[in-house]
Structures are given as C-alpha cells and as structure tokens.
C-alpha cells in the first residue's frame, strides 16, 4: 500500500522535573527598595502589617508586599511577559491567600494541576 522507505527524525526527550501547584503566597519586604529589587517596582505595594511583622523598635514600620505567586513557581505574568523574582530579599514569613486577586496587575503561574500516578502503566489502549 506504499513504497517509500520511512525516515524518522530523532526528537530528544526533554522532560523537566515534576512540580505541584504549591501554595498561593506573597513575599513581604522591609521596604520598597528590597521588594523592587526582587520584582518590579510596580508590583510592590505597601502592606498593612500585622503584629507578626512588627518589631519592638519600629511599631509603625511600613512593610511592602510583592505579587501573588505559587510557592513552587516564583514567577508571575506581568504586561504580557514572565517576571521571575531575582533575589530573596524578603523577610521570613510570606502571606498566604486562597484566591487569585482578580484586580492585581500580575497573575501567578500555577503548575501541577494535571497528572496522576499509575506506576508505569500505559494510559493508551
């Protein structure tokens, strides 16, 4: 039913490591400068800190908060491009949230929402 000799081109398998969605979170910074060094200045907002961020010496310090991202993918989509955090200048505890803020300037990128384990069996038929 055909006469040609078949040719195949080798396509390398380039699989990246597995990841899961992780938690939706934002980094908190001591000041706007540190936040803008990690992200983009426009994505850093003043943050009304709770007592957990207040220190004995500065009860009225203004903290800054970065964009929402998923804990295993410290990147956001902003103005049509991907922005990756460039450093770790944030202070210890991130702020977690349940939902993506619809009005935010950037959007988090989530991974790990598909897939399951079948121990090497075929999914095909």
């Amino acid at each position, binding site marked *: 039913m055909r006469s040609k000799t*078949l040719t195949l081109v080798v396509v390398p398998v380039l699989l990246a490591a*597995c990841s899961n969605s992780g938690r939706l979170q934002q980094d908190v910074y001591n000041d706007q400068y540190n936040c803008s060094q990690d992200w983009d200045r426009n994505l850093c907002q003043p943050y009304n800190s709770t007592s957990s961020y207040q220190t004995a010496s500065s009860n009225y310090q203004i903290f800054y908060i970065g964009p929402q991202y998923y804990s295993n993918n410290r990147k956001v989509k902003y103005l049509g491009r991907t922005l990756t955090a460039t450093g770790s200048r944030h202070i210890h505890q991130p702020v977690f949230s349940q939902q993506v803020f619809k009005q935010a300037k950037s*959007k988090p990128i989530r991974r790990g*929402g598909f*897939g399951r384990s079948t121990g090497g069996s075929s999914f*095909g*038929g």
Partner: protein
Amino acid sequence: MKRVILPARDDWQAQHRAIGFDYFDLASRDGSMYWSEGVAYEFSLKEIERLEDASNELHAMCLDVVADLVKRGNYPDYFHLPRAAIACIEDSWRKQSPMLYGRFDFAYDGQNIKMLEYNADTPTGLLEASVAQWHWLEQVAHIPNRNQFNSIHEALIARWQQLYVQGQHVHFTACQTAGREDWGNLEYLMDTAFQAGLNVHELSIENMGWDERNFVDLAEQPISHLFKLYPWEWLWQEEFGAFIRPDVDIDWIEPCWKMLLSNKAILVELWQRHPHHPLLAETHVYDPKQNYQGKWARKPILSREGANIHIVQNNLDCGAASGSFHFAEYDQAGYVMQRWVKTPLHDGMLPTLGLWMVGDECHGMSLREDVFDVIGNDAHFAAHYFVE
C-alpha cells in the same frame, strides 16, 4: 486470513531500537515479549479491502451519532459525562475541531467483521503499526509479491500539514508516570509533526501551567495546540479541569467531542441506531436486573487495554476474562454488555485487528494476539502482509 511462522530477521532487535521502538521487549506474564518476531498474519487483497471499507463505514456511523447527540443536546446518562464537558464537546463539534487519529479494534474470522470498540482518544501501538511492521515487510524473506495495508506514516504527516501551517507550534504531552510505550507513541507522533514542518515541544502533563488566562509551557509560553496522550475523562477530574472551557484559546488533539467515541456507550448508541448491522456486536447498557442469556462481555465504559472485562454466561458472572487486567480506576463509571464474538483461534492464538484511522480515512492495520479471551496489556504484536 492465516497465521504463518517465518524466520526471524537478523539484527531485528537493533532495528527496533534504531527507530525508537525500544519497548519491543516488554515482558508478558508468560515470559515472552511484546513483539513476536517471526509471527505474521497473511491476508488477501480482498480481505484487506473489506476491512478498510468496514472501518470507513463505522467511522462515518460514529460521526453521525456524535452529530445527532450534539444536535439534540441530549446525552444519555450512561455516558457518565461530566457536566462541564458538555459545553466543550458541543463547542469543539460545532467548530469542527479536527481529529488526528484513532484505532478500531475488530474481531475477524475471515468472513465476519465485528467492531469491538473504538480507541478514539488515546490509541497506542502506533509506532510499531506504522514503522516497525513496515520495516519487517521490507526485510522479511520468502514471501513473493507481498504488500501491507499501511500508509499510516505518510497519512499522519499529510494530516498535520492539512491541520496546521508550516512553523505552527504544537505541544505534546503525556503523564510523567506513564510507561515507555506511551512516551514512545508520543515521540513518534512528534516526529511526524516535525516532518510536516511544525515546531514541536514536549512536556509532561504535570508541568503544564496555568497563568489565569492560558495553559502555558515551561517557558511560560501559551500552549495553543496540544496533543495529549491522556484520557479526556481524567482531565476533567483534575484541578486544571476547571480551566478547560470554550473561551480558553487552545486546540486539544484529540478534540473534546472524541469523548463520545472513546466511551463504550457509543457501542450502545450504534446498536440502537443500526440494530443487527453486520459490523456491530449486540451491545446494551449493563443492568444488573437483566437476565443475560448466552455469552456476554461486560466492559467498563471508560477503560483501556482490555482492562476489567468480565465474562457473563447465562446470567452468571464468570469473573474476569482471561487476559484482562484490573484497574480500580476503570470501575468507577458504568458498564456495557457486548454479546461475545466468537473468533476462531490460530494455532491457539486469538488475534484482534487494529484498523487505523487518520483523519476520516482508514490508512492501515495492525494485529495483536494472545492465548487469552481478551487482548490486554500483555498481548503480542504480530506483523501482517497481504498478497493479491
């Protein structure tokens, strides 16, 4: 149709590996391997033409069912469709989202052809059907004037060219934990798309991302065309299933309307519309209150590789059909009852024929055989040829 034994080719293992068919030696429970070198089935041209015609006719009948169900907007409960899937099924059908490929499984006794099922969503066994058995045909000795029903490779390349313009980016995905067989199948399809001039990208389905507007790849680039070797019904069950919507700009290959064909409830619909059609085996929705006289196969509506099939004889559940593996996952939806198709054995082996559709035309055939009642994950691939 007859089973023949031929000398093994020199160096056949190395040849399989050279084309990426490095899973030819997957072990079966009896200690043998997946590829049966030296075993082949011979057909006449007339038989091949009948099988080809039957495939095209059944495919057209299947499309008629989809068209009718979508037109009426009435999907029987026994399809167990997730509610969210219906909008996508209808949207993809109305937009005429094109299919790439599929495989019918037939029982065949040399005269009668019976459709056992349509692997319309995630058929595998493609590389060996398209390339490995063709190489076998070119190299095998002692068969004058042989030919093979097989233009799958050229048809796939032509199909990609028909679907997309040169340079189009197409992503290919499968589950990270899937076996080498699935990834080999996926990479072969990528190869055909590459040869068709498309830009191909591979990623595991676990690595797909969502940026609140698009599915994205590992470089955060939107995925606009996605071939997935992953069942539709599983996509809907998972976290990102919530983002599969008609307003999200992505072409799924196979398209969502294929959910209606890969579901064994399609066999019920076909039988209702074409009762006693010679290409169909009588099939009904399983009802435990019914009295099933004679021999029947109880099949899960959503299962693969012949899994979870039970034999029911004179209303008595005789247990799992020999050759049928069990996966708890497949018992979560309903079942159909398909009247048992008695197929003659060849040297003690039961062959099942796979007829490959590319687009809307049948382009080739493959065979698997086993000593069991059901062609399961463990069955063996045997090449075929025909003579005029």
